[in-house]
């Protein structure tokens, strides 16, 4: 395991934007913590109840009637559910949550069969949507329901849990510090937010919008990794490595910066090609989008000193680093 340390932690005077972003992310998380826990509990109730299985059964019937709109996985799952497989009904119920078409057409669809279950689902589906609407991640995340200009930015400050926040903030601190020293504070802020928006755009293009929101700063942080890779391509930077829990198998090492870029892009591409996006989880496409954006800007920065000076308030300290 290697971990970027780069320039380490600098004082708030040297990298004010990194510190502001860090504090902003933490305070947003703390501020929404109670609402988020409450929202999670509310949604958990639905996931644990019969609602999900019933939803799966109805979604199976819905797929059966709209075969052209669904791919092989959905069709096979639907066949299994219709033959009475309740485990698969639960999976299909979860997929239904992410399906825009079903969410839109489902409540008015003429379902047949178990009328009690249909009424139960209709009654509880409304409640389920309400529970999602009060959840801060659904409210401020980037999703098919919330995708106006504010959400392109706000989603970058929302995190699903404390571990998600911790990992992103640690990367922001170490990678962000280096980038802020290169670009200067205002340019760094502009770049950080733009990278997040670009990540969301890439996600939108490759996966498409779905009702489950995209949250987290990882798209922006991938952008930081992209730009730092191009700008400091040949430089050896400080990394922390850990192989075994005894000396000298952990400690500091100076490696070319592209090492971290290669490992990120490989794992993101493997995730993108190897995971079923319908099941959710890590938004690899957003990471790739952020990285691409970072690479693009890195090349612009390197190759066109004039342009970089014009657009960004170019910081002379970059020469110290190069």
């Amino acid at each position, binding site marked *: *395991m290697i971990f970027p340390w780069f320039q380490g932690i600098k004082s708030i005077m040297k990298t004010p934007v990194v510190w502001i972003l860090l504090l902003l992310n933490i305070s947003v998380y703390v501020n929404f913590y109670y609402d988020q826990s409450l929202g999670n509990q509310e949604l958990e109730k639905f996931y644990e*109840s*019969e609602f999900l*299985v019933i939803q799966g*059964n109805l979604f199976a*019937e819905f797929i059966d009637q709209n075969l052209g709109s669904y791919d092989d*996985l959905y069709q*096979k*799952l639907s*066949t*299994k559910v*219709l*033959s*009475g*497989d*309740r*485990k*698969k*009904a639960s*999976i299909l119920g979860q997929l239904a949550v992410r399906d825009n078409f079903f969410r839109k057409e489902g409540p008015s669809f003429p379902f*047949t*069969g*178990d*009328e*009690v*279950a249909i*009424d*139960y689902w209709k009654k509880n589906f409304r409640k389920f949507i309400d529970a999602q609407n009060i959840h801060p991640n659904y409210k401020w995340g980037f999703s098919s329901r919330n995708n106006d200009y504010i959400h392109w930015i706000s989603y970058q400050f929302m995190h699903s849990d404390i571990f998600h926040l911790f990992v992103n903030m640690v990367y922001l601190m170490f990678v962000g510090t280096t980038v802020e020293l290169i670009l200067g504070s205002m340019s760094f802020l502009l770049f950080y937010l733009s990278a997040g928006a670009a990540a969301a755009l890439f996600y939108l293009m490759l996966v498409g919008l779905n009702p489950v929101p995209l949250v987290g700063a990882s798209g922006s942080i991938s952008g930081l990794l992209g730009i730092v890779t191009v700008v400091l391509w040949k430089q050896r930077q400080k990394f922390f490595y850990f*192989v*075994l829990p*005894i000396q000298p*198998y952990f400690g500091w*090492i100076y490696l070319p910066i592209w090492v971290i870029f*290669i*490992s990120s892009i*490989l*794992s993101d*591409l*493997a995730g*993108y*090609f*190897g*995971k*079923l996006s319908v*099941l959710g989880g890590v938004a690899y496409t957003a990471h790739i989008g952020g990285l691409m954006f970072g690479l693009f800007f890195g090349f612009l920065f390197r190759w066109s000193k004039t342009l970089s000076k014009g657009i960004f308030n170019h910081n002379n300290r970059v020469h110290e680093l190069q």
Partner: protein
Amino acid sequence: MVLANFDEEKYEIRNYAQDKKNPRHLAYPLDRLAAQIVDFAIILMFSGLLSAPFQKNFELAKILDQVWEAVFWFAAIILVFFICHIFYHTICIRVWEQTLGKKLFSLKVVSIWKRKISWKNSFMRVLIWWFEVLCLGIPFLAVFTNLKRRPFHERMSDTICFSYSHRIVGPPSLNEKSFVKGLMIPFYLGALLIFSINISTIVNFWLENREKLNDYQANIPRCEEVIEATADWPKYNGVKATRLEVAMGLYSAELVDKDCLLSEAQSAFYYKREQTLAYLASAFAHENNSELSNEYLMKVCKSKENSNECLFARIVNFWAEKDWVKAEEALSKVIMNDKTYIKNWAIKHYMSRRQHEKAYEILSDLQNNEYLSNFLASIRTQLLWSLGREEEALVSFNSSIPSLSKTYKRKTHAWLCLKQLNRSCESAKSDFCSDISEWNKHPKQVSLEEYFAQLRYFECNSQGNLKTVAQLLRGQKNELGERAFHSIVRGESSMQDLVNKSYKFVPSLFTSELVRRLVETSNTNENIKSLEKFWRKTNPYTKEWEDIGYFFVDKYKKDRKFNDAIAVLNSMYQITPNSNMIRKNLIVLNYLEGNKKRAWDFFNKDERSPASVKVDSANYNNIIFQLKKEFLKK
């Protein structure tokens, strides 16, 4: 290939003696391990990307329960990793004499001859490395025993790994060698033993599950028990039972779970068959979700008002409202229908209401059914025993043993053992209690009956010495064992606390057993009265409530406090006016207390068969004779 610990001078091969300009040492084993870990991480990244499409297919196969496809794609993922690993090592060692991991820890791999490693040797080295992995990595331990610290793959490929860092390690010392060799021998033997045991288990598992796996392939719905039972389910009046009826029958006998029942109901809804019964099945299966269950029950009658299913749904509502009279009226109508599931529920109803004669009557009327044989044999034994026909119960049980499943056999054994032990300790030697020590081998599976039978068994063997029982119970790792241990060693008052505090949280059988012990050991009237007060506050609509009531009656009878016993019986009579046992006890006790008129009134309510339990029949017959003599004359 040089397998032995080579002597550099003798073989005239590359000299590894210290060179001042180019210091070379034998590779430190931990450096080698760390280098392998780093290489693994690097290969994983690349192979992860290359095998990404296979990972996707693997996930798909997993979701769709396509076992063989999942195995295939998993094997493909492993194969990609294997190929990447072989390529990476072969190329790196041949071209640069080190991998990235080795470079990080200043290690190099060279040929022991004075030339570059050939492609063949480089490839052989990594291939044999994998062979060593398949041997559970044990051959790697040669780095602690070989003079040049060369594991098998290095000796086979005429290579050696050395370190050019300052971490110096010499040839293995004698202690190091003997320690590792000493460890290796038992490790080898142990691994061989485990492997031979596991291989037979794997083969058996494979053979047993082959058919099952094929079924998954054929997309057969989940509830295989129903498919199997439907084929041989007995016909009634030449009409074959439907799958949903069979599922209901099996569910009522607790032979399939709610998921199975719901799967069948779901299929019925989808194919628009037997929708009314499907609603009823769904109501049963959602018993833990009262809102949904009630909705289903209401829907049964909305769907088909004059159907048997609707009548049965009403019975379920009567059960919920504890309206036993209406429930039994409706049951008597619906029982004519001869549906197995209805009869099973009726038997369960009458058993819980202690109307064993009625339950037995319905049971006798049930057709033979091999899928319900376990359930019916167990019920028949319990009913015969409860009716006082103990010998018949034992004969019935013994004759059904060959066809009983292990679980049912153990369950019924425990039930009979407990009943016998509650009567006298001499039964501890009976056949039913003989395998008592076997029950505790899987503490999580021990039922309450088994647990209390064990408790009683320990008491009998220690001749009532509770300290010995407590010591025996100390070894019990289950929650009930812990509770009973504390309740017994802490004495009567704490037992009462336990009953008061935990009545709502523990199974009723547990409470009834504790109350029985309290009543038995209580010396003061106040204690018994306070217990009776507690009992009156609790839910009377359980089988155990009546059991506890009888403990008080027995205790009061023993102490000749007939009025107190009558008061308890009157409370019980209000709840179950049809119970012969309560009525007969009331006749006897009222007569003994001098309330002959009251006893006679109770006698005139006798419209049922004289079968009874717990009442001293000689005494009872004598009292009836006296009552008849006195009141018939009048």
